C-alpha cells in the first residue's frame, strides 16, 4: 500500500477532499492521468480524428435513449408495433427519444465507417496497433448484430422480413444450417419467440459486450499510443515537451488539448444530427424505411425489400453470388494456380497451391451458390481483421505512398459506395431499355464484389509496388 498522505489542516476544502479520495481510491486519479491529462497524442491530428470520440458520443446517446425507450416498449409480437406508435404519439417527448435512437443508429454507422476509413488511410492498423484494429473490427461486428436485432423490435414489415432473410442466411450453412436457424428463431418462422430473444440481446447482452470491447479498444490504444496522419511514431522521436521531460516532444496531453478540439467536432456533428432528428427523421426512407410503418405480416413480403443503408453493400455482395459468380471464382482460382507454376517458388509450394486450388474448386462446386453468397458476405467483413498482415507497404500513411496507391484506394471506395447503392436498388436490369437488359444489378454487383475482394486479397502484392516518398523523421506540423 502506498504511503498515507497527510495534508495541512489549513488546506482548502477542495484540496482536503482531493486528498481524502486520493488516499482511499488512488486508481481514479491514476486512470485520469494515464488516459486524459498525461496521455500524449500526436499534435497533428486532422479532420479524420474526430470520428473516434464521435463514435463514443453516439454510443452514449444510444444507451441513454435506449434505456428510456425500454420503459414504454413491449417486446411482444401482438403489441410491439402498437407500443412503438404509443411512444411516438402518447408518451410526452417519446417521438424525440425514439427519433434520437433511430437516427443515432445510422449516425453510428456513418461515424464508424469514416473512423475505419481513417485507419485505412493512415495505416493505423499496422504494427504495433494490430490489436487496436482487431478490437475495432469486433466492435464493428457487434455493432452490426446490435443494429440488426434492434431493427426487428418495431415489428414492422421491414423488421420482420429483414430478420427472416438474415436468419435464413444461417440455414445456408451446410449440414447444421436449418437447425441453427431454428435455434436462432426459436420457432419455425420469425415470431414472438424471436422478438423476445432479440430484445434481450439488443438491450443487454450485446451492449455489455460492446462496452467491454470499447474499453479494450481504448486501453490497447493508450498502451501503444495513437497513430497520426504522417504514420511516423512520436514515441521514436525526440523526448521532452512542456509538460514532461519523458513524454514525446510531438505529443500533447489529450486533456485539455484534444477534449477541447473534439468539442468542435461534437458541435458540428450535433448540428447535423439534430437537423435530421427534427426535420427528416426517416431521411427519405434510408434511416427508417417506409414499409416499416406497416405492421409485420408473415404472409406478405413487401414488393421491394432492402436492408437499412448501412448493410446494403454487404447485402449486395450476397445477392450477386449466384452460379455465374461461383463459376467466375472457380476460373480465378484455377488461373491463379496455373500462374503460380510460372513463378519462382519451390516445386513443393507450387504443388501445395495447386492442391488447395483443386479442393477450393471442388468445394465451390459442391455446395450451393446460396452458401457461398453467405461466405462472400461474411468474408467481406472478416477480411478486415487481416488487414494488418495484408498491407506490406514500407510506409504507413497514404501521404507517403506512391501516388497511384491513392487511385487504388479511390477505386475501392467507389466499389464500396456503388455496392451500397446497388444493394438498396431492386434486382434485375438497371436501365429501362431493352438494349441494356443484360446490364443487371447482380452482374454489376458481381464485378464490384470481385473488386472489393481483390483490393484486400491482392494487397500483399500491390502494396509493395512503386516507390514510396521519403517519410519525415518527425510529424509535419504547422503552427496556427
Amino acid at each position, binding site marked *: 500500500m502506498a504511503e498515507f498522505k497527510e495534508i495541512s489542516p489549513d488546506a482548502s476544502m477542495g484540496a482536503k477532499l482531493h486528498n481524502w479520495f486520493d488516499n482511499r481510491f488512488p486508481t481514479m486519479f491514476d486512470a485520469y492521468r494515464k488516459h486524459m491529462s498525461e496521455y500524449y497524442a500526436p499534435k497533428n491530428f486532422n479532420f479524420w480524428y474526430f470520428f473516434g470520440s464521435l463514435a463514443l458520443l453516439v454510443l452514449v446517446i444510444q444507451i441513454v435513449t435506449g434505456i428510456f425507450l425500454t420503459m414504454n416498449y413491449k417486446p411482444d409480437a401482438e403489441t410491439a408495433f402498437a407500443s412503438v406508435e404509443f411512444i411516438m404519439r402518447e408518451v410526452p417527448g417519446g417521438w424525440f427519444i425514439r427519433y434520437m435512437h433511430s437516427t443515432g443508429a445510422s449516425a453510428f454507422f456513418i461515424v464508424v465507417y469514416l473512423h475505419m476509413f481513417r485507419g485505412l488511410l493512415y495505416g493505423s492498423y499496422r504494427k504495433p496497433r494490430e490489436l487496436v484494429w482487431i478490437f475495432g473490427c469486433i466492435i464493428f461486428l457487434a455493432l452490426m448484430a446490435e443494429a440488426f436485432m434492434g431493427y426487428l423490435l418495431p415489428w414492422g414489415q421491414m423488421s420482420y422480413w429483414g430478420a427472416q*432473410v438474415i436468419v*435464413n442466411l444461417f440455414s445456408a450453412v451446410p449440414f447444421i444450417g436449418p437447425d441453427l436457424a431454428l435455434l436462432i*428463431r*426459436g420457432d419455425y418462422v420469425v*415470431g414472438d419467440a424471436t422478438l423476445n*430473444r432479440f430484445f434481450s440481446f439488443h438491450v443487454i447482452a450485446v451492449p455489455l459486450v460492446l462496452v467491454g470491447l470499447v474499453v479494450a479498444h481504448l486501453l490497447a490504444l493508450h498502451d501503444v499510443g495513437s497513430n497520426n496522419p504522417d504514420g511516423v511514431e512520436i514515441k521514436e522521436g525526440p523526448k521532452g515537451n512542456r509538460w514532461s521531460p519523458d513524454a514525446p516532444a510531438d505529443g500533447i496531453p489529450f486533456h485539455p488539448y484534444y477534449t477541447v478540439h473534439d468539442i468542435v467536432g461534437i458541435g458540428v456533428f450535433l448540428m447535423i444530427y439534430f437537423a435530421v432528428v427534427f426535420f427528416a427523421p426517416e431521411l427519405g426512407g434510408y434511416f427508417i424505411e417506409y414499409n416499416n410503418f406497416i405492421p409485420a405480416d408473415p404472409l406478405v413480403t413487401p414488393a*421491394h425489400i432492402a436492408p437499412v443503408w448501412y448493410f446494403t453493400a454487404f447485402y449486395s455482395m450476397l445477392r450477386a453470388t449466384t452460379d455465374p459468380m461461383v463459376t467466375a471464382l472457380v476460373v480465378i482460382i484455377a488461373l491463379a494456380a496455373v500462374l503460380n507454376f510460372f513463378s519462382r517458388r519451390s516445386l513443393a509450394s507450387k504443388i501445395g497451391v495447386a492442391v488447395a486450388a483443386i479442393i477450393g474448386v471442388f468445394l465451390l462446386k459442391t455446395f450451393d451458390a446460396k452458401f457461398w453468397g453467405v461466405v462472400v458476405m461474411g468474408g467481406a467483413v472478416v477480411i478486415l481483421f487481416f488487414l494488418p498482415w495484408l498491407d506490406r507497404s514500407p510506409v504507413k500513411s497514404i501521404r507517403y505512398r506512391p501516388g497511384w496507391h491513392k487511385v487504388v484506394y479511390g477505386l475501392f471506395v467507389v466499389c464500396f459506395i456503388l455496392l451500397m447503392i446497388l444493394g438498396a436498388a431492386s434486382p*434485375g436490369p438497371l436501365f429501362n431499355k*431493352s438494349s441494356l437488359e443484360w446490364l443487371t444489378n447482380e452482374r454489376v454487383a458481381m464485378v464490384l464484389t470481385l473488386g472489393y475482394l481483390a483490393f484486400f486479397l491482392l494487397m500483399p502484392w500491390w502494396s509493395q509496388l512503386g516507390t514510396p516518398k521519403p517519410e519525415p523523421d518527425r510529424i509535419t506540423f504547422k503552427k496556427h
Partner: protein
Amino acid sequence: MNDNTAGRAFTPAPIDGSKRAWLITTSVAGAAGTVALAAPFAVSFAPSEKARAAGAPVEVDISDLGEGQKMTVAWRGKPVWILRRNERMLETLPKTDALVADPDSKRTAFPIPDYAKNEWRAREDRKDILVLIGICTHLGCSPTDKFKPGPQPSLPDNWLGGWFCACHGSTFDFSGRVFKDKPAPDNLQVPRYMFISENKLWIGKDEDGEGDVV
C-alpha cells in the same frame, strides 16, 4: 513491494506433485460442471412446446377460387398458396422445362411429396391445383405474383408468368420451379396436401402422414 522484502531473494516453493494433481482434477471437474450448466441455457433457444404443437394441418375450402386465381392460407405461420391454374398457365410448363434449374424436382434440400415430383408439381388427377409454401428457398422472402406474361421491370422479355422474389431476384414458373442462375437453389416447396372432397383439401397432411415431408 514492501520494504521488508527488500534485499531478500524470492525463492518459489518446490512444486508439490499431489497438490498439483488435485488442483488439476478440481479445475477439470469445475470446467465440466460449467459446461453442463450451459446446456439448459443452450436448449432454451429451441422452439417451445407451444410452438411445436402449433404445426397442426389446416383445412381449406377452395370453392370460391376461380380459374387463374390464387389464395393464401397460413400453415405453421408460413404462407401457403393455392393456385387454380388455367389452361394458359399449364401450357407454359413444357416451355419452361429447359429454362428451370431442376425441372423434375430431383433435389432433396427442400423435400416434397412424391406426387409433386413432376412437371406440374401437383397430384396427377388434379393438375390444375398447385399448392406451394410461398417462401423463397433462398432466404425466406415471400415472392410476388407476376402472372401477366410479357416484358416488365425486373423480368426477362420472354416472361411467361410465375413468381418473382423482390428480395434477391429469383424467378419461378407456374409450378414454382426456380429458373436457372438465380440465387434460390431449389424449387418452391410443396407441402403435404390431400383432397377431402372436390373443393376441400388438407394442408400439412396426406395419406402418408402429417407435418414435414421426410
